[in-house]
């Protein structure tokens, strides 16, 4: 367990020290959220109705943008090979790196979400639910993204392919995240049922995704 925490801490420190990854993801998130009203028109009630959807989809795309670098940098400078020979099995290495991505990039995006929600006139009672659903949903995004990153490791234009592979898998997280939010904002359905399914999705992804990611890593290490 010690080695696991050590690896997560190292990755988080690395991302923060390089800083670039976090700011690009946040910048992209801001731009996408800011551009949509320009496209859809400044009508505030329209914006407040589509705010959850816009915030979630933009978050997915921002996370997707940064997911590729989970393994890529370590493969490039040879550290991945040394880590693979370390005490941790490859599955835990994949889990550690995905967790580090969630901490270093997923969380900042979630913290930025309420601020961007102001741009979209999100109803006041929805701010806490926005944070809650996003904190619960973003681990699944990082872990599923790590599977895509491992599969497209070492490919020339892997980024685009990564998006095509992983976005369909994000649909359940997106659907239940937003339905939980709408349950609070407009309210026909009960909030708890959607939110609990979202938690189940995240837990299942956190457990199963590293297995697929490790299998894919073995391919690119061979």
């Amino acid at each position: 367990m010690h080695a696991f925490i050590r690896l997560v801490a190292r990755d988080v420190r690395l991302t923060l020290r390089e800083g670039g990854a976090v700011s690009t993801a946040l910048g992209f998130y801001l731009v996408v959220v800011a551009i949509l009203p320009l496209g859809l028109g400044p009508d505030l009630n329209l914006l407040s109705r589509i705010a959850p959807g816009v915030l979630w989809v933009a978050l997915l795309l921002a996370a997707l943008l940064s997911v590729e670098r989970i393994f890529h940098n370590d493969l490039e400078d040879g550290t991945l090979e040394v880590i693979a020979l370390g005490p941790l099995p490859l599955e835990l290495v994949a889990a550690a790196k995905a967790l580090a991505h969630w901490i270093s990039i997923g969380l900042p995006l979630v913290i930025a979400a309420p601020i961007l929600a102001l741009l979209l006139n999100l109803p006041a009672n929805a701010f806490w639910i926005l944070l809650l659903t996003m904190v619960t949903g973003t681990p699944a995004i990082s872990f599923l993204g790590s599977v895509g990153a491992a599969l497209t490791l070492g490919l020339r234009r892997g980024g685009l392919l990564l998006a095509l592979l992983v976005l369909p898998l994000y649909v359940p997280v997106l659907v239940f995240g937003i339905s939980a939010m709408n349950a609070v904002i407009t309210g026909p359905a009960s909030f708890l049922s959607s939110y609990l399914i979202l938690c189940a999705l995240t837990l299942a992804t956190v457990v199963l995704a590293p297995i697929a990611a490790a299998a894919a890593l073995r391919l690119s290490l061979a």
Partner: protein
Amino acid sequence: MRLGVQDLTCVRGGRTVFENLSFEVKKGSGLQLTGANGVGKSSLLRILAGFLPPAAGRITLEGADDETPIGEFCHYVGHLNGVKRAFTVRENLLFWSEYCGGGDIDPALETFNLLDLSDIPAGLLSAGQARRLGLARLQVIERPLWLLDEPSVSLDEASRNILASAIRNHTRNGGLAIAATHLPLGVKFAHTLELGAEAH
């Protein structure tokens, strides 16, 4: 600790790189791999490290329990140094020591004369210095089997001697070393294995 390899066959990209390869490396001895490029030296080292699954054959490491994969008993030094450019020299080695459960890092910094560079980000190091930092982890983490693929590349004369003495100490204390190299390492290896030697 004795490494035994029986009838190893390696297939890469649909092509048989080598077939029915058998050899052994006894405790405290070294093996040098020679042969033309593309004859499978790197592939053999990657199979021993556990990165590349062999098409056929068996690898046994006596004196080690069977569950833990061989990978955890060996160091693999490839063409890449395994060094994080954003971290300083000390931070790089410190991570390896904490992650793989190694010892103190100062003796390693000293042997690979990186002490005065220890607080400089690895990104600013020269190729030779970065290579020495990559090799320093061999001393930080105690592993019986060293797999070295062209270790002396981009090393100057002095650094090559440092590497040679490190290998000599390692084999003297009962370690095993397998090195694939064209340039002389300054180490007299007990055995040599010529790959791709069968008549075409």
